[in-house]
């Protein structure tokens, strides 16, 4: 057998996947980038141009940057809530020796079988006027109304319910990889519950926290159905705004610019937080 250069074999193995990614992701992105520099025209749709006006329109207008800020705030809040709520559940599942463990995992996965639109509709039934919550409050205190639908709270709770399973599953697999004898060693050295968690479990599960956090953050930044259905017409987030520009106003150049701004913001924050966590992990 003739010896083949090592690089060639690797190239052959990576080649097909690379081609698929280039064709399905990179090429459309390049096209989108080109569109974002075009000019919108009502009658001829898109005029070939080479202008930064779509980006400037977004960045110079407090209305649009405000929408970006709201999106970021919701993303940070839901990601933090996911971490806080997800960690105890993930830890319990990971350390469980019970024969019911698989049932627990199944319960976490089960909501993922239902689409986000359907889940949002479910929340509408709970939070809306005349919904479960409103009726319960109305029964307890007649004459009062307690409708939470079409508020940032409704959007946050809707997105949280969608992202939590991803967070739990990510954290669970990482925590399972931490040798439980390390925790026992901490116990034997006299650490109490809090110190064991703070000095041992938390630093070792940082990669899981980072991955889960990034996942939840990206999912929220791009959330479409939940903000649209639970936020209503008065609440704006980036993805529904992008969709409106693209599919309702037919303003492809501006929609492409919004897409890039959203993508760059998300990627930058993700990269920065990952780098930060990695440094902490190494230090730990």
């Amino acid at each position: 057998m003739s010896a083949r250069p090592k690089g060639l074999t690797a190239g052959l193995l990576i080649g097909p996947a690379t081609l698929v990614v280039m064709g399905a992701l990179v090429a459309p992105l390049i096209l989108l980038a080109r569109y974002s520099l075009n000019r919108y025209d009502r009658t001829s749709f898109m005029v070939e141009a080479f202008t930064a006006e779509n980006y400037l329109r977004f960045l110079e207008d407090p209305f649009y940057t405000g929408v970006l800020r709201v999106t970021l705030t919701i993303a940070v809040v839901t990601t933090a809530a996911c971490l806080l709520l997800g960690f105890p559940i993930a830890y319990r599942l990971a350390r469980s020796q019970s024969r019911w463990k698989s049932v627990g995992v199944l319960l976490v996965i089960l909501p993922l079988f239902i689409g986000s639109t359907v889940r949002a509709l479910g929340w509408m039934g709970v939070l809306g006027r005349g919904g479960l919550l409103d009726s319960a409050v109305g029964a307890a205190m007649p004459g009062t109304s307690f409708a939470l639908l079409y508020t940032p709270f409704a959007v946050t709770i809707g997105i949280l319910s969608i992202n939590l399973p991803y967070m739990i599953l990510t954290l669970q697999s990482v925590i399972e990889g931490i040798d439980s004898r390390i925790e026992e060693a901490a116990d034997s050295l006299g650490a109490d519950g809090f110190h064991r968690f703070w000095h041992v479990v938390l630093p070792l599960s940082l990669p899981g926290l980072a991955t889960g956090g990034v996942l939840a953050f990206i999912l929220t930044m791009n959330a479409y159905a939940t903000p649209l259905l639970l936020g209503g017409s008065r609440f704006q987030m980036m993805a529904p705004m992008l969709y409106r520009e693209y599919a309702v106003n037919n303003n492809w150049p501006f929609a492409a610019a919004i897409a890039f701004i959203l993508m760059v913001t998300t990627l930058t924050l993700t990269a920065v937080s990952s780098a930060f966590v990695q440094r902490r992990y190494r230090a730990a």
Partner: protein
Amino acid sequence: MTTPTRRHLLGLGAAAAALPFMPHVARAQGSSQPGGRIVVSTWGGDYAGLLGTNIDRPIVAPKGIEVTQDVGTEPARIAKLIAQRRLPRGNVDIMCAQAPASYDLNEAGLLETLDESKVPNMRHIVPELRTNYALPHIFSPQILIHATERVQAPPASFADLLTDRYKGKVGVLDSAFVYPLMAAALSRTGDASNFDAAKADLEKVIRDGGRAFTTTDAFGPALRSGEVDAGPVWQARVLFWQKAGIPVAATFPREGSIAYVSAMSVPKNAPNKAAAFAYLNAMLEPAAQKGFADSMGFLPTNATVTLEGDTAQRLAFPDPRPKIVAPDYAKLSAARDGLNDWWRRLLDGR
């Protein structure tokens, strides 16, 4: 036997390459007798279904015209039409779009000019709705709906919706906000196109806590639950919700009703124009028009159509006949981008 030269081979190759295009060439230059296949670009859902049951199968199929529907949202279909504007041969024969969008398409130079020699039934079209680029298919006046359980004195004018009685209890459709804006302008100034004069009225509605529904379907349940008590909507919607058992009634505003018009047009590069004109003529046929009135509660655009029975009763105009106002599409088109921007900021409250 002669040996094929290079020139022979090239000639044969060119002929073979041209072959697939020959039938189209033949058809385009052939007789004006309609026939063959046409593509109708339309919304999906009930509308598409009713095109099939009222026009495609009973009227145009017997003429030898086979209809294929290209179903999608209006902006997506418009984008497609604009994208293929430079092609000598497009792939859409009939474009179904709302009247304002049809106006824009015509302004962009994409639509065939229509007259009675092409579409004989054009002469029956309700005069206020007639244009020579897009024929109105169905229409519905915007009227003032109210929840009968909570509203004792129904609103008689858009101005009534601005009174304290309706503070925070008015609903409008987010995507169709220009229609309530035109209603407000008509009420305030007598000119439905005086958008700037009406902005303050809609700003009051929204800032007082009025609802802007992202989907039409959300409006009906909100009238039932008490979230809103009144608002401007199409007559067809009122009838739909009444049928669904929601306790609502409606009045025609005394200043007049803005007409929502759904139209059909023929792109200049339609591959089968003769059949497309036949299709337009068919959609104006009384039988087809009655079908849409019966099932969707839209009014016929053919003035000679007389509705009968239950449908006639439900769609009857009050006496005296209310004023129906067709929007000034040119002014609407010129103002639209600015209005869209104003509306989004208003809703956002920033």
